[in-house]
């Protein structure tokens, strides 16, 4: 089984000049299409047993002597493939700034307070319907050095595996109505039509009374190229690649 390739119309380019550090780090040559072989169509296996008790509750997993400060949230959603199949047993790892916009990371120099009770990292494994749920604190915006007065919009980093290393995805979840989105070169690096799907929806159904606001963020990974036509395309690519050699 092969997967549909990365859809160029949904993903950023390797080099997006407004995002300064991409200039020296993005590859300059086109990636070489190879026919799908076992190596890239398999991947590590995950199950719920790999998780620690509070791995998906960031309001609890960094506590030292009290509760973390900030707005509590529930972030939940489904992981699906392009063919609408739910993706179970998918590891999701997240990391984020605290409510003040400060990462616990040793290299973060932003002059905002560290929250002694908040780590900002968590993980979950999707259930049989591809669902996941985190409890966390709404991350703050933070400044960065890309250009004068540059601020990252509020965001949570997401890392996902899916069924193979070919479906691996690292992305960021943003918040509705954030005025920084239109100024952020990382978000703006995404083609226009695909941007809004990186913005979570406020979800009153998932909001827990007297406790936490709900946000929904669904994620779509590459799906199996299942139709005979897609298979043909794959074969054609294989031939072309061999030809070039």
């Amino acid at each position, binding site marked *: 089984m092969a997967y549909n390739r990365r859809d160029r119309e949904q993903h950023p380019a390797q080099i997006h000049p407004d995002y300064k550090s991409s200039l020296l780090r*993005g590859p300059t040559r086109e990636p070489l299409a*190879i026919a799908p*072989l*076992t190596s890239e169509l398999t991947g590590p296996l995950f199950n719920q047993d790999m998780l620690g008790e509070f791995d998906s509750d960031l309001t609890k997993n960094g506590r030292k002597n009290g509760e973390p400060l900030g707005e509590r949230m529930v972030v939940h959603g489904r992981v699906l493939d392009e063919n609408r199949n739910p993706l179970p047993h998918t590891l999701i790892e997240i990391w984020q700034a605290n409510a003040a916009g400060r*990462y616990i990371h040793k290299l973060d120099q932003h002059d905002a307070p560290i929250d002694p009770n908040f780590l900002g990292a968590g993980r979950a494994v999707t259930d049989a319907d591809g669902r996941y749920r985190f409890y966390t604190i709404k991350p703050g915006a933070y400044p960065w050095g890309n250009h004068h007065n540059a601020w990252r919009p509020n965001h949570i*980093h997401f890392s996902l595996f899916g069924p193979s290393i070919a479906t691996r995805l690292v992305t960021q979840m943003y918040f509705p109505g954030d005025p920084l989105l239109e100024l952020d070169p990382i978000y703006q690096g995404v083609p226009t039509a695909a941007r809004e799907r990186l913005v979570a929806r406020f979800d009153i159904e998932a909001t827990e009374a007297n406790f936490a606001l709900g946000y929904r963020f669904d994620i779509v990974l590459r799906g199996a190229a299942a139709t005979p036509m897609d298979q043909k395309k794959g074969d054609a690519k294989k031939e072309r690649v061999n030809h070039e050699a």
Partner: protein
Amino acid sequence: MKLKQTASQTVGPYFAYGLTPQQYGYDFRSIFSNRIDGDGERIALSGRVFDGNGEAVNDAMIEIWQADARGQYQGNGFARFGTGTDSQCRFHFDTIRPGSIDNEQAPHICVLVFMRGLLLHNYTRIYFSDEAAANERDPVLNSVPAERRGTLIAERSDTPDGPAYRFDIHMQGERETVFFDV
């Protein structure tokens, strides 16, 4: 109707406490290390990631995925390492030599490259310098223009602890590593 793929974004500079916490000394259990266990010959693998100015990148994250010694994918051949804890920005893996896959492909290790500045992660493969005969028959290596094949070969050296392979990744320039659309 098909759904659209969610867009990729950079891993950013601050992935360490979420993705490689124990390596970087954070108080959170890692579920991946830089070691792959199994039967077979143990090998060391290390290298650096260079940007377009030839400077070593200190905030890259490298993941590897490989077959076991018999060339089978068992679901446990995965490891991860960040380049920020070594004084020379190296990554290090302690693994087993993978077998040939389907008796057709030469032994190799799949590599995923993430870093601040990369909006999309990149895929490449490590082949071994001491597998010249198998490399010559490998269909993927053969699909790479001959003058760029060398960017995919890890160089062997022998140490008291066993074979060590060095594999540097060049994001740009004359020696730009071959990346794959998989």
